[in-house]
């Protein structure tokens, strides 16, 4: 079950090597994103687009405001 986290936990995860994915559309990602994040828009999220990610390493996702 995915865990809902806040910014402090996110920073700890990132410091420990977690992967970070922004799921907003590409233009919103291009405008501003969190350092180190890659962009996989929700509408394209599938086995192929996530193939570069390590399934055994923690991964954190975010959008604009969680809604």
């Amino acid at each position: 079950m995915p865990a809902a986290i806040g910014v402090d936990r996110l920073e700890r995860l990132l410091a420990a090597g977690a992967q970070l994915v922004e799921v907003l559309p590409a233009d919103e990602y291009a405008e501003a994103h969190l350092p180190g994040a890659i962009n996989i828009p929700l509408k394209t999220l599938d086995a192929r687009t996530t193939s570069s990610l390590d399934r055994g390493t923690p991964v954190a996702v975010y959008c604009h405001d969680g809604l």
Partner: protein
Amino acid sequence: MSPRAAWRLEALGFEHVYDYVGGKADWLASGRPRAGRAAGEVFAGDLVDPDPPTCALADRVSDLGAALRASRYGFTLVINDRRVLLGRVRRSALSAAPEEARAEDVMEPGPSTVRYDTPASQLIERLAHKKLRTAIVTTPTGRLVGVFDRAAAARRLA
């Protein structure tokens, strides 16, 4: 959007999935580093006065006078113990208020706010257009970031 993405990743076989629920809005509102085209943009939150006059709901109006007279904004902001913005008390509201009144009795509830990541240059223009001197900046969860002073911000951007 991110909750659905998190569940989708889990269904795709990811073992440890986390949903940063505050999202980009929360990150940017905290003033943390950012990447992308807007990385170099100066945001409203970057230029606020982070320590404007504040008070609590239960503070007596009679105790607010000195702080309000000293306030360069002409108001004090009403916040709770989590620094969530609840209202604004203007200097002009004090003259007609009985001494036993509390901030809650004379405040304007829910004053308009802007987000931390509003471009500062845009906000200066908007405020000038509306003939306003200041804007209150809050996080997406309503916590007070500070007061954006149009003239001071314009000087810093010049």
